[in-house]
């Protein structure tokens, strides 16, 4: 589409050169990654093709702005006779061999040969200069009665997004060409803003009722969400208001810690007291044992003292008895001595001496 640069245009245009290897590398996860070999991309497009065909069966499909033809290949796998056109020579040339023949390098503004059951145009027109995009729409509407269309209303920072519009604008342009959104088909699996359009002749009443059927539930949903949002907002305000709430919680945690420490301390004190009591009880027990033992010993000693006192008394009696006997003996002795003296004075000495010895012997 190199000639487009020379044609008079109102706005910015992009050319094939803008969509070389570097574009794919930086925008689609690396040059190698965006290919049929990549399992994740393959699965993504395979699912997309199957879902589109499930909503709207088609035997012939054209993908406008097909890039490396991944969607085309996915349609073929799903049983459709699919072709693709893209302005990027790099993209078409680096496509998978199985699909290479089904792809053509060319501009979307060029007339489309033949007719198709379905034309897909996904994330393409926002890259084209405004009037050329309208030309491309013209061509697509001429070649089919059904279009799957997606064009991002976002990503304004992307340098090649030179023609970004709200979906409502695109729908208006399609309506100018007799194509209307199928409000029964949700293409959210492609992009949040993807739509399926069909050529039809609708009365204003039919258009209104179609859109109202969608708008009504959406309004209801919005209302419910607003209410939920309000409630959440109020809850946040409330929590923020007793702003100390978190502070109070921290304080309580501190308090719990303090109580735990106190409980530990109390249990420790209890343990000490328990030991003290056990010790005192043991001491009392031991002392009671001592008392019993000493009591027994005391009784023995007392009994012995009594016995000794008895003995002492008996001995005393014996002593006084002996003393009186001694007195008696002394008296007798004195008497005998006197008698001896009498005899000594009277009889022979030798006889007296013999008598005296005999008498004194036992008296001693």
């Amino acid at each position, binding site marked *: 589409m190199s000639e487009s640069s020379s044609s008079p245009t109102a706005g910015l245009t992009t050319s094939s050169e803008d969509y070389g290897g570097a574009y794919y590398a930086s925008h689609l996860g690396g040059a190698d990654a965006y290919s049929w070999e990549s399992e994740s991309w393959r699965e993504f497009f395979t699912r997309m093709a199957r879902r589109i065909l499930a909503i709207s069966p088609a035997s012939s499909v054209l993908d406008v702005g097909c890039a490396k033809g991944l969607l085309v290949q996915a349609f073929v796998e799903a049983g459709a006779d699919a072709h693709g056109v893209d302005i990027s020579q790099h993209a078409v040339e680096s496509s998978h061999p199985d699909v290479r023949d089904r792809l053509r390098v060319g501009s979307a503004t060029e007339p489309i040969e033949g007719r198709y059951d379905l034309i897909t145009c996904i994330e393409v027109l926002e890259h084209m200069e405004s009037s050329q995009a309208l030309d491309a729409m013209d061509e697509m509407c001429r070649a089919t009665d059904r279009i799957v269309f997606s064009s991002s209303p976002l990503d304004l920072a992307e340098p090649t997004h030179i023609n970004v519009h709200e979906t409502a604008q695109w729908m208006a342009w399609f309506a100018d060409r007799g194509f209307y959104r199928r409000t029964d088909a949700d293409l959210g699996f492609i992009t949040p803003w993807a739509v399926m359009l069909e050529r039809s002749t609708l009365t204003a009443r039919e258009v209104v009722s179609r859109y109202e059927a969608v708008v009504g539930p959406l309004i209801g949903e919005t209302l419910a969400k607003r209410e939920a949002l309000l409630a959440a907002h109020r809850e946040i305000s409330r929590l923020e208001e007793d702003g100390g709430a978190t502070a109070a919680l921290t304080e309580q945690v501190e308090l719990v810690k303090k109580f735990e420490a106190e409980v*530990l301390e109390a*249990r*420790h004190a209890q*343990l*000490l*007291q*328990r*030991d*003290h*009591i*056990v*010790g005192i009880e*043991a*001491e009392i027990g*031991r002392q009671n*044992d001592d008392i019993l033992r000493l009591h027994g010993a005391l009784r023995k000693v007392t009994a012995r003292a009594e016995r000794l006192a008895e003995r002492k008394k008996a001995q005393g009696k014996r002593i006084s008895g002996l003393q009186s006997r001694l007195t008696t003996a002394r008296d007798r002795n004195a008497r005998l001595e006197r008698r001896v003296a009498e005899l000594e004075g009277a009889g022979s000495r030798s006889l007296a001496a013999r008598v005296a010895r005999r008498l004194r012997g036992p008296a001693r």
Partner: protein
Amino acid sequence: MTSPLFSIVTPVYDPPLRIFEETFASVLEQEHQDWEWVLVDDHSPTDDVRAFIRAHAATDPRVRLIERADNGHIVKASNDGVAAAQGEFLVFLDHDDLLVPTALKAMARHIALHDDTDYLYSDEDKADEDGTLHSPFRKPRWSPERLRGQMYTSHLSVMRTSLVREVGSFREGYDGSQDHDLALRVSERARRVVHVPQVLYHWRAIAGSAAADIDAKPYATIAGQRAVQDQLDRLGIAGRVEQGREPGRYVIQRDLDPDVRVSVIIPTLGGSALVFGERRVLVEETVRSLLAKTDHDNVEVVVVHDEPTPSSVLEVLRDIAGDKLVLEPYDKPFNFSEKCNVGALRATGDRLVFLNDDVEVISDRWLENLVGPLDEPDVGLTGAKLYFSDGSIQHAGHGYWGKHYHHPFRFRTRDDAGPFGELAVNREVTGVTAACAAIRRDVFIGIGGFSEALPSNFNDVDFCYKVTHHGYRTVWVANCELFHFESQTRDSAVQPWERHLVVRRWGIPDKDLYTPAAIASPMVDPHRLLDQQINQPARSRPTRGTASRANRTAKD
């Protein structure tokens, strides 16, 4: 008091008549008169003994002879005797052993003390063929755990006849250990088991009899192992019985319910020492080995660390123990008791294990074996077997006697089984060291933990007294072995007031009821002897007195 009728039961099988006559005489000489003697001849091959008994039976109606028609061996013969007995108590006498003349009198005196006495056993010694008496076995007071380790009650055993019959008398298939099996079964049901601390029985050491050499009857030890295992199974004690270090000694490998949470409490300062030629942070190896040597996973390690403990040590402990580690800082002056108490209060386990930081676990399943016995409700405290770094014994239970607190069997070698198996089997003791001790939480709280009035010495002695005072048994576990690198961490000087405090509570230790002093001695510290040899003048030799002073007290 009516004196009970004793039925002496003696299975007889071909004893030498000369020996048997002495046995016979020892019964006839009994001072206590109320006895009958049921002699069961187990079909002896010669008629001499039967004729001898018949002759006596003809003149003394108390002597009864039962003649078996066939040889039924010890179990059948003994059961015949039990069946025929008419007395209130059974007295088991072997056909070649001797009763002392006061044997039945002493038993009758102890029976009279309590109505519920079902089983009595006395001390015993051995008699050579020439009548020389030796090896008196001074037994401990009733020790159910010890009975699992060995048939220590043995002779003289007196059992209530009705109870023996209730448990089914002797069991077939336990020949050689049938007496051990019966003692286990009777003691399980006995309301009271009494130790009579007098030698009432002389066991003849005749070649081939168990008294001379239990090796002569290896089948007996296999039967004994089964008898003990049976008891564990009957009582629901999870464990496995193994043969011990000596024949007739049994070791129990206990299992621990995985749901039982165990808290190991280690007070530490994070100190280092030279151990086996390596400088190591003691507590690190303690924690490492304690976790490595057990299969029990439900464990927390509560390390009560003083302020000076280096943070690098705590980091290493975190690496070793991971989320099992609980760190409890301690910033007061050193008080071993308080550190233990703080750790215990912080701990979440049902079982508390106190461990010094200067130990290293040696034996596998140490924790299972140490904590397992606490499943029995009347066991309050357990302790371990500790060695010095040279492998000699540092701790094998406490003994409190003769005014002092002792470490019986100290300095004996690791492979020494003890005079009567004391070092080879689990046994009840008066106390254990807190260097490694396990206690149930409820018991710990109930006794008031460690007395903080005793900051460094004797706190474990007081602790053990308290456990006993509250009616619990203390079990020393022979197969829970650790090194204890003692005295590497603190000074052991004992102050007089420390001893006074313990004595004020518990009195002056006199006799130990589980470890008689005579059995435990000597406990001479070779290092101190060496010290004396070096420091004393050459002419004076160490006397008995200095040697006994060398016995270190229980808490150093």
